[in-house]
């Protein structure tokens, strides 16, 4: 009886922790885009391609990536969707810039600056904290 109770407790605790983790992750960031971007959803692969400068269109609309300089949303986004840490990402961009293969993507200093830039710039796609106000932009669902 005690053993069953312990097992049930462990199961509930595990489900609870998984749920909390999912909620925490879901709360980390959201992907936003200028209203000119026709797509409402984006695959994880396409999102990665956009931010690694392999792809410059979504759903027929030209897009350009916008990054945050740092912070929890930036760290979480870069880790989850780009498969890199910030050091590796910066090295990747520099490898393109200093060999003439690409220009550095726009990088801004805060969620507010990212939202303001995305709202006014045709094709801009960025990410901000999930709780950050994002008037003037649309939120993309990542599949």
């Amino acid at each position, binding site marked *: 009886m005690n053993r069953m109770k312990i097992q049930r407790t462990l199961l509930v605790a595990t489900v609870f922790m998984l749920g909390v983790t999912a909620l925490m992750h879901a709360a980390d960031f959201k992907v936003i885009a200028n209203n000119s971007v026709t797509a409402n959803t984006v695959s994880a692969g396409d999102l990665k391609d956009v931010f690694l400068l392999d792809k*410059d269109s979504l759903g027929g609309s030209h897009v350009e990536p916008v990054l945050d300089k740092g912070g929890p949303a930036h760290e979480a986004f870069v880790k989850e969707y780009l498969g890199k*840490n910030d050091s590796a990402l910066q090295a990747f961009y520099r*490898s393109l*810039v*200093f060999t003439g293969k690409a220009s550095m993507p726009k*990088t801004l200093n805060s969620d507010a600056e990212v939202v303001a830039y995305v709202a006014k710039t045709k094709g801009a796609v960025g990410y901000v904290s999930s709780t950050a106000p994002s008037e003037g932009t649309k939120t993309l669902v990542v599949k």
Partner: protein
Amino acid sequence: MNRLFIGVMALAFGASSAMVHAQYNFNLAGRQVQVHSFGSQGFAYSNDNSYLTMNTSQGSFNFDDLGVNLSSQVTDKLRLGAQGYTRRLGELSKGQVTLDWAVVDYRFKPWLGVRGGKVKTALGLYNDLQDVDSISTWALLPQSMYPIDLRGSTIAHYGGDLYGRVRLGKYGKADYTAYGGELPSDPHQGFLYALSAVFIEKTPYRGPIYGGDVKWTTPLKGFLAGASYMTQHPTGSGVGGQGGPIPGKAYTWDSKKRAITQFYVQYIVKGLHVDGEYHRDYRHLLTYVPSTNNLSSNEWNARSWYISGAYRFSHRIEVGSYYSFFTPNQNVDTSLPGNHIYDKVVTARFDLKSFWTVKVEGHFIDGYGANDSARGFYQFDGAHNITPQPQTNMLLVRTGFSF
């Protein structure tokens, strides 16, 4: 150049973090132009010998560089850019400012683009990146593969590239580059310095170059593999030096064939980064002296490889090690110190800021290669013939910035 370099470094270090992180842009004819820069300063000290024409046995700061580029995404498909570069490396480069690259790049489709101008050459993992200190774990890339004193012989070409990315479905993706053009002359490279006592260049040593590279990003996460091929046919002429076999006589050089084949693999997962490359370099050089109607033929069959591993413990610290193997000519006894250079290296990289790194590196070098391989060790210091010692231990500290 040294004062200018110090000034730029002071600007980078003294500016506020926000300033340095800022992208430097300006508008020209309605288009945004980005400005980026990188640079480094090194210090080398060895227990014996002089390495890379620096007086390392006394300690040398004669190892620095600076690059500045401007670029603009003119339309969705069209990009323009150019980069200037200057460096000091011992007796080889003394601060001359050069055009590193200047490119017009048009991407028709993801699988097809074209770029032309002075273009960095795709060869292996790091040929086109070797100047940018901040990109690499190492203060000095494996010299068997990316000899800094011979940089000019492969770094860029005047001509054009076709390039693109091909999706392979469940098999990953492949990036290709095919190029052709002319190999620029580099009067400051080690090859000419090494032979400067016996051959004095009068017309630049240059000629056609073409080749390609294919990089396969495999379905195995973090693993890629690739292969490169390059062929060159440079020619030049000069006069024999007084210390050489044809003193005062005119000569011509014809690299009848130079062919480089390179294979590489890379594995990156979380903080671990492993690289391995293998390189074959075949050269057949004809030297003709018209006054004596004498034609001599020399061939080299070099083999190089390295394997490296690095681990990033935090966003501030990365440590690593590599083993670098070079034999200038497979046709001779490579066990002799004059016929090989083996280098065991350990490195610690510190990212003090996102734009500022410091690297501390130890080299334990066995052998010194051959004088005509002109790599690392030189048996002529500009005035005297010297015979290097077979073992060299060297400390290299290098600090760099990029923004």
